[in-house]
């Protein structure tokens, strides 16, 4: 009984497969005869794809040459220096800006110090004593 069922299933699968392959053969026969304009467009698409593949390969080869150059120079094992080199300009820019800011601060402080020094070191001009505002300032109590 079991063998009978197995035989039926196998026969069914074989029949399905045979039929399917016959249909596929017909489809292949039909696909062999496409309209000339379709065949032409397919040819164009194929050539375009091959051109793209060629360019892609050339690009890969270019990268290969670069890699061999690196190998000769002894850098091929690690790529950390490439990353470092890529962030180096940014680090230099930020460092430069910090230095410029610091230099400007120092210059401003230096100029202010020179002015203060000149003012404090110089004698009080005589006209200052004749200024009513200055007299009031001197008379006023220090805590006001």
């Amino acid at each position, binding site marked *: 009984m079991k063998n009978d069922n197995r035989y039926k299933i196998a026969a069914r699968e074989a029949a399905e497969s045979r039929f*399917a392959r*016959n249909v596929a053969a017909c489809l292949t026969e039909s696909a062999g005869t496409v309209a000339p304009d379709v065949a032409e467009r397919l040819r164009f698409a194929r050539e*375009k794809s*091959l051109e793209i*593949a060629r360019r892609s390969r050339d690009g890969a080869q270019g990268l290969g040459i670069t890699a061999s150059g690196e190998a000769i120079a002894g850098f091929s094992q690690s790529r950390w220096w490439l990353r470092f080199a890529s962030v180096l300009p940014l680090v230099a820019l930020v460092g430069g800006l910090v230095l410029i800011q610091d230099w400007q601060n120092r210059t401003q402080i230096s100029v202010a110090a020179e002015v203060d020094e000149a003012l404090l070191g110089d004698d009080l001009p005589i006209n200052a004593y004749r200024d009513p505002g200055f007299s009031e300032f001197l008379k006023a109590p220090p805590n006001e």
Partner: protein
Amino acid sequence: MATEKELSDFLKSVEKRAWKRAVYAVRDDDAALDIVQDTMIRLSEKYADRPAAELPLLFQRILSNATMDWFRRQKVRNQVVRNFSDFESAAGKEDDFDILETLEALGGPLQSESAAESVSRAQILQTIEAEVALLPARQREAFLLRYWEELDVAETAASMGCSEGSVKTHCSRAVHALAKALKAKGIST
């Protein structure tokens, strides 16, 4: 890595079948050509460095994806919701239809039954193509990949993104539906 000649030969060998497959799916010759071109370009751009043996499976996968992309674009363009999940055959009841008997009858090279002289070979092929195009999408894809592209069950499952059991079910249903439809039209083997 596949050489340029291997890639060229491969594309030449699959391009017409691929176009037919796309036509069955989208039912528009120009759109099918665009899909095949897109598939070839994607294969060449991304997988030209793969061994030649890997190209068939990759190509079928890309073709399926490109076809789905086309349907998605159409859906957005037309704002029409198309029910892709309706993969079940409308003629589900096959109690009165002895498939094994029919399949056995459809054994040899396809030909017309009683009107063999009056129906040309080209018409028979056209009818078969039309019936294949009428299959539900997943059944048709499984059938074509399995029997036309001659992928094995595992490769077909990988290409369709489903289980091997689903592939077997889709293929079996497709064969039964085709056998029944062709028998009804007087085409047997």
